[in-house]
């Protein structure tokens, strides 16, 4: 497949991709001393732009193109109706600074979504403001921090994090100004209870844990873990990245979690967009309600038989504050609303049922070929090792790259860190048995190739538009921009920005 030139390389002076109306008002002189001399943007026609980006799209792989078993990312099918819903003019054309009377439709949608997300998690309240899972996490940890401070308990500065955790967990903790205490896992992939109990004291603010774990396993000592942390006065944070295994299966709020976040772009089918926008609502129990980021949507006047209730904004009394301008990634909220509305309660439980069925099925097909370090029923994903003693020199990355030759997106590599040469596979519920059979067959073929013709893997991928890329060179030369930027220090002194 041919690579595509940069948009700047097809630029021709004088072209423009859009025609704008003439100035239809009496003109005002521009303040010349405030204006810039140069503006180095491309000059291309609309068709140039369309062809350029369509060709770029051909160099990409997405769920719409094929199977995308990228573990921990829940790459399920993104229903097309979601896209139409978010683009309805009353949503897409709605200004965020309008008052509540002008935005009742949007507020009602958000109110219902808050209510439903609270129901699914067994929590009491939800803020839809966080823009992504990482921001939801950050909100949750700030809430825990503020909860302790509010009680006059300033010595709780430590957050317990299992060593299988996603990197955001420790990074979030540091960002909140708290200290990370890493906990080991036991030989079954569960939290090492003895180590946990030893770490529990009156300096513990809380614990962050992913359920099912990043190994794809339902922690078997979950109740003991929660009891230990609560017992020392800490709070429990659930990383909801893996909620796709949990809907209608287990409500985190019911087993004692105090706060959690959702990833709407994972569990609730909003698209991943090539790396965002996501949406990371945070849900909490009664204890933490006053600390939610806000404002959140509330019913401010009850409805009756004729009138719906009036919805408005409410700032929780002891809120950690605002984490984002305006009201969260509203377009993502519309998509998640649409998805939940289409599924209902039984439908969402089926989502989790079939996500877990699919993962266990692929695991069953592969466990004789690949080493599965923690081999028991998995949740919606599982982790296996991409290495064999009798195939030296083969790494998980080689297997991943070879999968591309067969038309698949690779699984997640090298995560979680506690499994060597990890390949983390998450099929999601929207994939059919035939797809899973073919994928498993391909992985068996690759295992054979690894033993018989390892070069085939080392040199893979062969059929992709580019081969393996040189990451070291990228960091060394650090070319981040193809436009020459003037050295402003050597420019003539800038004129006053104060208009004469």
């Amino acid at each position, binding site marked *: 497949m041919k690579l595509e030139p940069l948009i700047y390389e097809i630029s021709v002076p004088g072209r423009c991709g859009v025609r704008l109306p003439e100035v239809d008002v009496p003109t005002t002189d521009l303040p010349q001393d405030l204006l810039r001399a140069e503006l180095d943007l491309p000059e291309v026609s609309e068709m140039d732009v369309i062809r350029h980006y369509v060709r770029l799209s051909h160099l990409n792989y997405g769920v719409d193109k094929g199977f995308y078993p990228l573990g921990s990312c829940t790459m399920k099918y993104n229903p097309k109706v979601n896209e139409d819903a978010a683009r309805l003019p009353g949503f897409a054309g709605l200004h965020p600074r309008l008052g509540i009377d002008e935005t009742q439709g949007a507020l009602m949608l958000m109110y219902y979504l808050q209510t439903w997300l609270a129901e699914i998690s067994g929590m009491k309240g939800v803020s839809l403001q966080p823009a992504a899972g990482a921001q939801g996490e950050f909100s949750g940890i700030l809430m825990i921090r503020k909860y302790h401070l509010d009680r006059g308990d300033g010595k709780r500065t430590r957050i317990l994090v299992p060593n299988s955790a996603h990197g955001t967990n420790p990074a979030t903790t540091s960002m909140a100004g708290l200290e990370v205490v890493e906990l080991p896992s036991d030989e079954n992939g569960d939290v090492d209870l003895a180590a946990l109990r030893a770490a529990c004291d009156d300096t513990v603010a809380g614990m962050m844990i992913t359920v099912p774990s990043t190994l794809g396993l339902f922690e078997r000592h979950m109740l003991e873990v929660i009891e230990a942390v609560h017992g020392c006065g800490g709070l429990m944070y659930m990383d909801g990245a893996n909620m796709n295994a949990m809907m209608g299966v287990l409500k985190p709020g019911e087993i004692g979690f105090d706060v959690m976040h959702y990833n709407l772009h994972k569990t609730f089918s909003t698209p991943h967009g090539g790396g965002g926008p996501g949406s990371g609502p945070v849900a909490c129990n009664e204890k933490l309600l006053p600390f939610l980021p806000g404002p959140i949507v509330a019913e401010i006047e009850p409805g009756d038989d004729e009138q719906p209730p009036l919805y408005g904004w409410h700032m929780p009394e002891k809120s950690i504050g605002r984490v984002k301008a305006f009201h969260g990634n509203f377009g993502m909220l519309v998509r998640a609303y649409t998805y939940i509305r289409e599924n209902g309660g039984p439908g969402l439980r089926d989502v989790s049922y079939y996500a877990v069925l699919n993962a266990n099925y692929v695991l069953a097909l592969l466990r004789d070929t690949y080493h599965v370090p923690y081999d028991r029923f998995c949740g919606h994903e599982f982790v296996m090792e991409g290495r064999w003693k009798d195939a030296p020199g083969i790494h998980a990355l080689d297997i991943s790259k070879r999968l591309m030759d067969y038309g698949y997106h690779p699984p997640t590599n090298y995560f979680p860190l506690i499994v060597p040469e990890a390949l983390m596979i998450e099929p999601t519920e929207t994939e059919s048995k035939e797809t899973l059979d073919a994928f498993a067959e391909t992985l068996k073929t690759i295992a054979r190739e690894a033993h018989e013709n390892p070069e085939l893997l080392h040199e893979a991928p062969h059929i992709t538009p580019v081969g393996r890329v040189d990451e070291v060179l990228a960091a060394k030369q650090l070319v981040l*921009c193809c436009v020459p930027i003037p050295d402003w220090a050597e420019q003539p002194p800038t004129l006053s920005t104060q208009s004469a």
Partner: protein
Amino acid sequence: MSYIPHTDADRRAMLAAIGVESIEELFDAVPEQYRFPHLALPEPLSEMEVLSELYGLQAANASVQDFSLFLGAGAYHHFIPSAINHILLRGEFYTAYTPYQPEVSQGTLQAIFEYQSMLCALTGMEAANASHYDGATSLAEAIIVAINEARGKRRKIVLSAGINPQYREVVRTYLQGQDVTFVGDDRVRTPAELLELVDDQTAMLAVAYPNFFGQIEDFTGLADSLHSQKVLLTLVADPIMLGLFKSPGELGADMAVGEGQPLGIPLSFGGPYLGYFACTKQLVRKISGRIIGETKDNRGQRAFVMTLRPREQDIRREKATSNICTNQGLMALAAGIYLSLMGKCGLRTVANLCYQKSHYAAREIDRLPGFSVDWSKPFFKEFMVRCPRPVAEINARLLEDYGIIGGYDLAQDYPDRANTMLLAVTEMNTREEIDALVAALEEIAS
């Protein structure tokens, strides 16, 4: 409506391969007393039913389709060329994830590299990342960079009250655990007055360009003075204005951040938007977020890849300076397409239309008895008008009787600006709309 493809026969065959009788058995590790709770959610709807419900909800909102809009205050109604949406809806872009595997992600990677390049050109800065969540969080990330650049030894940030009040709330939320002091935004101060607050504890000073009141302030000597004291300068800049006006780079900024929503992204009730982030080359190793760099593949071809990865949370974990892992990828794509379509000439034209129309509106309103426009500083597309009545009252009449969404009531955030309306005029406001606004204001005041 279900997106699950399994037939009964599939399910049975799969359960048999696993060696269980039912799906429920797979959840044996979940504590039994809590297993399979009821979900009290509304009954499922078909696609046509859910669409019909959504039509109803969206119709209960006052959208730009039905009203003429003069409201800005951080979110702007600009023209969005049709081509953008057609590209965004390509499944290869919007159903992909973070380009961890460059061999099958060159589309996303190159598009973001080009976005970074156009952002650099626009801001006059040497580097840009793949974006943050929005303008507010981009500013928060800039502050974290400044604190780290000073090795944590300077923990004071000077903020102008001319920065969007919501941004100032967000940065305080972000830094609440980190012993950082914010000064300067307790009242509106000139850049010179802000400079007086800078001392040897100060890591960064941030101002807005234009400020929240639409004004272009005088930054002469600001950067030099700050740099001589080892303090970084961050400009929160409107990207459309940069089509005409001097770039943050030319004004000596170390970081340029802001809201990229005006670059082809719909209002959408406040999100998803685009936090753009650009900086000097000296700072690039300190910034957070995805960065795309150029490299070569093993066949000698030019290729693109996520670079400076060791800064990021998945590798650096608790030592990372930010937990961000995604960006606003699809919104960065939208901005890239927008800047390509507009190009050198188009963006200037849009900026000029904003300037001309807002100045026309300001002159016309200024003539009305009881209304006076603040001409004390140059402005771009937003300006302040002192009104003879409370802004909320005027806005209610504008909406109900004239189908016009009026400006922002500044008293909400600045108590000393009672009866002051912040009006935004863009290329989307025709002369007829502006004249209708002026006539309506005149009638309402009389």
